[in-house]
C-alpha cells in the first residue's frame, strides 16, 4: 500500500545530491522518473507486441464483419469468397463454401436404436473427417458412452473404452447435439452468435462468437466444442464440400457444434454419421413429414429423450427394440 513520507524526509531525493548533472529545472528525480517511464513504456510495447502484430495483420473486413443475419446476399458472397481465398492461401486447397438456407416444411429429427448400436465408433470417425475437425485432439461432435446394462446412470458409463466391442454386459449410447427446441446454449449467448434455424438446427456464426464459452457451460449434453487453437487438418484431408454455418475451417477462439451436417442435409443428403454407421442404428428425417421413417419410429417405438427433466426439448431420440 502507498507509503506517505513526511515532507522533510524526501529532501535528499529532490535534487540536492548532485551525482547526476542538473540541467535547467530538471532535477535528478525528474530525470529518473522520465527514465523509469520510458523503460516502462518500452517494456509495455515489448510485452504487447505479439498481440498487436496479430491484430494488425487482420483485414478490416474481417475485424468489422457484421452478424450473419445482418449481411445481405452480396455481402455474404463477399465473405464467402474471402474465406475460400483464405483456405486456398493457407492450405492450397480449393474449397466450396455454400450458404444453404433451411428448407420449407422441414424440421429435422434424429433417433438412435440402442439395441442395435454396438459402440464401434464409426460415427465419431466420420464426423471427425466430414467436419474438418482438429486432427491432433481427434475431435468429434459425437461421444459414445459405454453404459452398464440395467442402468441409465451415465456416471457408471465410460467414453474411453478401448476393448473390442460389443461387450455383452454393456450397451452403447452415442451423444451429440440434441438440437433442443428450448436450447439453454442459445439463451445464454450474450451476443446472439448462436441461434436456432427454422429447420431446428442450432448454428454458430464463427465470425461473431466472442469465445466466452458460456454456451459450453450451459449445454447439458456436452455438445459444444471450443477451438482452443486453430484446428489443424492436413491439406489433403480437408473436406472441400463446406457450409458457412457448419464445417468450414474454423478460426481459433470460437465455439462450434454438431449441425446435423447442414451442408449435406439441406442438400437432400444424410448426415455423415448416419451414412457411416455399419449397424443401421441411426434414423434421420423430417419430423413434419408424416410418412418419414423418423415419424414411424416415434409412433411405433418406445422412445425416450436424454435428460428430459431439464426441459430442453431435444429433437434427438433414443429407443430400444424390445
Amino acid at each position, binding site marked *: 500500500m502507498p507509503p506517505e513520507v513526511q515532507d522533510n524526509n524526501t529532501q535528499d531525493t529532490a535534487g540536492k545530491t548532485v551525482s547526476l548533472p542538473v540541467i535547467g529545472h530538471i532535477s535528478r528525480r525528474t530525470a529518473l522518473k522520465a527514465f523509469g517511464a520510458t523503460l516502462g513504456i518500452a517494456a509495455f510495447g515489448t510485452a*504487447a507486441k505479439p498481440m498487436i502484430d496479430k491484430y494488425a495483420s487482420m483485414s478490416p473486413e474481417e475485424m468489422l464483419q457484421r452478424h450473419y443475419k445482418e449481411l445481405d446476399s452480396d455481402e455474404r458472397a463477399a465473405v464467402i469468397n474471402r474465406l475460400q481465398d483464405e483456405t486456398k492461401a493457407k492450405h492450397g486447397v480449393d474449397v466450396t463454401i455454400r450458404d444453404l438456407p433451411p428448407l420449407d416444411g422441414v424440421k429435422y429429427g434424429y433417433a438412435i436404436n440402442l439395441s442395435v448400436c454396438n459402440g464401434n465408433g464409426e460415427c465419431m470417425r466420420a464426423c471427425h473427417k466430414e467436419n474438418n475437425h482438429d486432427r491432433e485432439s481427434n475431435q468429434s461432435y459425437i461421444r459414445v458412452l459405454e453404459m452398464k446394462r440395467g442402468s441409465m446412470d451415465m456416471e457408471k458409463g465410460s467414453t474411453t473404452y478401448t476393448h473390442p466391442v460389443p461387450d455383452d454386459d454393456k450397451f452403447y449410447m452415442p451423444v451429440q447435439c440434441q438440437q433442443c427446441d428450448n436450447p439453454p446454449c442459445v439463451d445464454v449467448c450474450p451476443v446472439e452468435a448462436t441461434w436456432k434455424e427454422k429447420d431446428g438446427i442450432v448454428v454458430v456464426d464463427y465470425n461473431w462468437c466472442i469465445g*466466452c464459452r458460456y454456451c459450453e457451460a450451459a449445454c447439458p449434453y456436452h455438445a459444444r466444442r*471450443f*477451438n482452443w487453437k486453430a484446428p489443424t487438418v492436413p491439406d489433403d484431408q480437408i473436406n472441400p464440400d463446406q457450409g458457412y454455418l457448419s464445417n468450414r475451417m474454423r478460426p*481459433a477462439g470460437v465455439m462450434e457444434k454438431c449441425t446435423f451436417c447442414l451442408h449435406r442435409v439441406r442438400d437432400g443428403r444424410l448426415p455423415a454419421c448416419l451414412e457411416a454407421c455399419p449397424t443401421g442404428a441411426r434414423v434421420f428425417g423430417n419430423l413434419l413429414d408424416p410418412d418419414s421413417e423418423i415419424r414411424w419410429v416415434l409412433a411405433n417405438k418406445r422412445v425416450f429423450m436424454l435428460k428430459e427433466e431439464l426441459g430442453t426439448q431435444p429433437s434427438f431420440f433414443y429407443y430400444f427394440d424390445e
Partner: protein
Amino acid sequence: MSQTPTTPTHPSAGHELEHSQHRHLVTYPKFLWKCFCAATDGGPLFYAWMIFLTAVTLVGLSAWSHQITNGMAVTGMSDHVSWGMYIANFTFIVGLAAGGVMMVIPAYLYHDRDMHDVVIVGELLAIASIIMCLLFVTVDLGHPERFWHLMPFIGRFNFPISMLTWDVIVLNGYLLINLHICGYLLYTRFQGRKPEARFYIPVVFISVFWAISIHTVTAFLYCGLGGRPLWNSALLAPRFLASAFVSGPAFIILTLYILRRLTDLPVSEKAIKTLLQILRVTICINLLMVISEMFTEFYSGTAHTASARYLYFGLHGKDALVPWIWTAVALNIIAAIVLLSPGLSKRANWIKAACVMVFIAVWIEKGMGLIIPGFIPSTLHEVVEYTPTITEWKITAGIWAFGLLAYSASLKTTVAIIRGRVSNQSPNASPQDVKL
C-alpha cells in the same frame, strides 16, 4: 468488458450555481494533473511497491499476448472444464467489489461519523475490483477484439435473456457509480468546497442496491444453468452475498491497518471495530450456508451430488481440489473462532491474521472451489480434471497486480487530497513540488 472510462466523470461539473463552467474547464484538468502527480510521486517504499506491481502487470500482459497469439490452448482449460482460473477469480472479485458496501451502509444509512471518514477506502476498492473483474472476463475471451459485439446498439446485445448481458450492465454501472462518488467527493475537497448532498447522496443510495445486484446477477450466471447440479441451487446468490461480506470487510480492515501505519489518514479504532462486528456476523452466516449446502448434498446422497463429492472427497480417484477445499474450511473455522473469541479478537495481530485467513478461505471456496467442480464430472459424467498452466498464473497475477496498482495509486492520491496536500490552492503542479 467495454465502455470502461479511465477518468472520474462528473455530471455535476458545470452545473454549479456559484461557479461558471469556464472555471471547471481550468480546475478540472488541474485536478486530474495534480492527482496524476500525487499518484506517481512518493518515497522509496512507495516506488518499490509500485515498480513491483508494474513489473508483475507487465509479466501478465506478456502472458496474455502469448495466449492471444497461440490460442487458449496455452491454458489448462478443456471442453470438459471450460472455465478455469480467470472466471474463478472474476467471481471472487465481484464479491470484493460488493463488499465495500459494508462501509457505505454504516457511513450513510446509520450516519457513523468514524466510518464516514474512511468510507472512500471501500468505494475505491469497488473501483479497483471492477476493473479487475472486467479484465478477468476479457482475458477469458477467445476473441477479445470482438468486444464491440457485446455493446448495446453497436453489436447484438442479447438482453434480457442472457444473464451475461445483465452482468455487463451491472458491472459497468457499478464502476460508473463509484467513479462518480469518489471523483465528486475528491474534486470538491480539492476545490476546498463542501460536497453538495444532491450531487452524490442519491447515487450513494443507488450504490447500496447496486452492490447487491452485481453479486446477485453474477450468481445467476451460474445458478440459472439446469445442466450443472452443483450451481443450480437457490442458495447460490445468498451464499455469494454472505461470502462477499466476509472477504470485502476483511480486505478493508487490512487496508485500514496499512493506511494507519503508512499514512497520516485518520483511521479511528471505531471504524475498524464496526467492520469487525459486521465480519463476525457474516462469517457465521457464510459458514451456516456452507453447512446447509453440504448437508443437502451429502445426506440425500442423490446422483446430483457427484460434483460435491469430487470437491470434498474426490471422485474415481481424482481429487485435485480436496486439499484446497479443506484448507478453506479450516481457515474459515479458525478465523471464526478467533473473531468470536472475546480475548483474541481484541488483539490487532490476531485480527489481521483472521482477516488474511478468511480472505484466502473465500478465495478458494468461491473461486476455484465453486467454478471447477461445476464442470467435474462433465455433463456426460466424465471426470476430467483441471490444472491451471503457468500462463494462467501469470495472467492472473498480472491482473491482481494491476488492480492493486490502481488501488494503491488511488489511495495515495485520496489521502493527499483529504490531508490537504493536494488542492486547488497548492502550488502549481510539477513533480518537484509534490513532496509526499
